[in-house]
C-alpha cells in the first residue's frame, strides 16, 4: 500500500501515473465551487493556509457538532467537472499538486496538471463512510460563515485516507478521455446490433 504524506513532496507527485492508487496520511482541505471562487478573488496575505502543502478534496461533507467539536458523519467526493472553470487558475496561483474528486476533469485542468507537475485522482463516489473513518480530526474550518457547511474549507487530519486512483497525470494522460473514446466506439457497435 503506497502512502503519501503531507506536506506534499512535489517530486513524488511527478512520478505518479494514471492507474496508480495510493493513500494519504496528513491533511486534506475541502473546496467546492464557492470556495474556489472566494480564494481566487482574495489577496495572498488574507489566505489563512497554504494550499500548496496539502491535497485538495472536492467535497461537501455531512458534518455536525458534538459536545462543541466538529464530527464528520460522511465525506465522499462531489462531481469535479463543475470546478473545471476555476481549476487551472487555482493550480497556477496556489501550486496545489494533488486534486481529489470524482468523475474527472477536462482539458484546461489536464494542461495545468502537465505544466505544474500535478495529478487528479478519483476517490470512489459515495464512499463517504470510509473517508469519515479515516478522518481523525477536524483541524480547522475557514470561511464557514461566508460559505456555509458544504462549501467551507474544512481541514481534515487523515490517516491512510483513500484509495485515490490517479486518473489524470502530469504526463498528459487521462483515463476519463480514454474511457470516453472507448465507450463511444462500443456504443456504435452495440447500437448497430439492435
Amino acid at each position, binding site marked *: 500500500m503506497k502512502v503519501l504524506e503531507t506536506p506534499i513532496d512535489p517530486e513524488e507527485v511527478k512520478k505518479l501515473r494514471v*492507474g496508480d*492508487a495510493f493513500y494519504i496520511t496528513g491533511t486534506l482541505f475541502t473546496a467546492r465551487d464557492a470556495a474556489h471562487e472566494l480564494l481566487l478573488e482574495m489577496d495572498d496575505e488574507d489566505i489563512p493556509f497554504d494550499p500548496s502543502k496539502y491535497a485538495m478534496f472536492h*467535497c*461537501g*461533507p*455531512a458534518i*455536525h457538532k458534538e459536545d462543541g467539536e466538529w464530527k464528520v*458523519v*460522511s*465525506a*465522499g467526493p462531489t*462531481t469535479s*467537472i463543475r470546478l473545471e472553470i476555476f481549476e487551472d487558475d487555482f493550480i497556477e496561483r496556489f501550486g496545489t499538486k494533488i486534486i481529489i474528486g*470524482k*468523475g*474527472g476533469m477536462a482539458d484546461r485542468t489536464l494542461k495545468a496538471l502537465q505544466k505544474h507537475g500535478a495529478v487528479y485522482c*478519483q*476517490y*470512489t*463516489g*459515495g*464512499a*463517504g*463512510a*470510509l473517508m*469519515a*473513518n479515516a478522518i481523525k480530526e477536524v483541524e480547522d474550518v475557514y470561511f464557514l460563515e461566508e460559505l456555509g457547511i*458544504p462549501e467551507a474549507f474544512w481541514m481534515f487530519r487523515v490517516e491512510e485516507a483513500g*484509495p485515490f*486512483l490517479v*486518473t489524470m497525470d502530469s504526463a498528459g494522460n487521462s*483515463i*476519463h478521455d*480514454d*474511457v*470516453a473514446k*472507448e*465507450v*463511444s466506439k*462500443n*456504443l456504435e*457497435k*452495440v*447500437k448497430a*446490433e*439492435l
Partner: protein
Amino acid sequence: MNMNRADLEENLIEGIREAVTSVTDDTESALKDAKEREEKEGAKVQLDAILENIDVGKSEKRPICQDTGTQTFFVELGADFKWSGELKNALNSSVKKATEKIPLRPNAVDPISDKNSGDNTGRFIPSIHWDIVDGDEAMIHIIPKGGGSENMSKLEMMTPGRGLKGVKEIVLDQIAEMAGKPCPPTTIGVGLGGGADLAMELAKKALLRPVGERHAEERIAKLEEELLEKANDLGVGPMGVGGKTTVLDVKIEYAHRHPASYPVAVLPQCWANRQAKVKIDSEGEVEVIR
C-alpha cells in the same frame, strides 16, 4: 386498537436510518459479483472501496454517502387503512427528526430564494407517492435519492414510429452519455408510456423492485435482460474508470400511452441503492423491514 404516533415516528426514523446506512442486500450481492468479474485494476480499486464503505456504514450505522438524498416515499395504502392522515403527518415530522438524529445532510432548497430549509422538508418535500391498494395495511417504501444520479435523469418524448428499437437506443445513449457521473455501477429505472409525468414516476418506482429480479411479464423481462447485457458492453465501468460492470440491473415499468406520444424516461440510481420499508398492519403495529 389505536396506532401509537410516537412509535410510528420512531419506526419511520429507524427505517430512514436503515436506508441511508446501507444498500439493499440484492445490491450488495450484485456488487460482490461485479468484483469477481472485473479484471482491470482501476475497476477493482473502485469496487473494493465501495464494498469496504458498505461494511463501515453497516457496522457503525453511519450514512454511507454524505449526500443522504431527497427523502422519497412510495406508499401502498390499503383502501381500508385507518390512519392515512396521521401517516402523512408522521412522514413529514419523522424526516425533520431524522435530519437531526441520524443526522442527514439538509437537502431541501427553495428554488427561488436558494435558501436551504435545514430540515429536509419544504414545499412538496419529502416527496410522497400514494398508491391505493386493497386491504387495511400500509407499506411505506423509503428511497432516499442522491442528487448526482438524479441529475442524470432523462425524459425523451420519442416519435412513436421509432418503436422498441428507439427505446433501446435512448436508454443506451443515456448510459453512455452519463458515463461516470451517476456513480456507477448504477441500477437504471426506465419508464415507458403514460404522459411525461407518469413515465418519470414509473422510472423511479421501477427501482423499488430488487436488483436481479425480472419483470413479471416475459416481454418486459426480456427487454430488461437485453438492455442489461448491452449496457455492460459499453465499458463505462465502476465509477467510470472502465470495466465490465456499468449497470447492476435495468428495471422497466410501463403504462399505456397516447397514440401520438411515446415518453421514454431513464432514471439512474447510484451504486448506493439505499432503501428500506416500514409496514403498518391493521392493528397499528409498526415494523421496519430490510
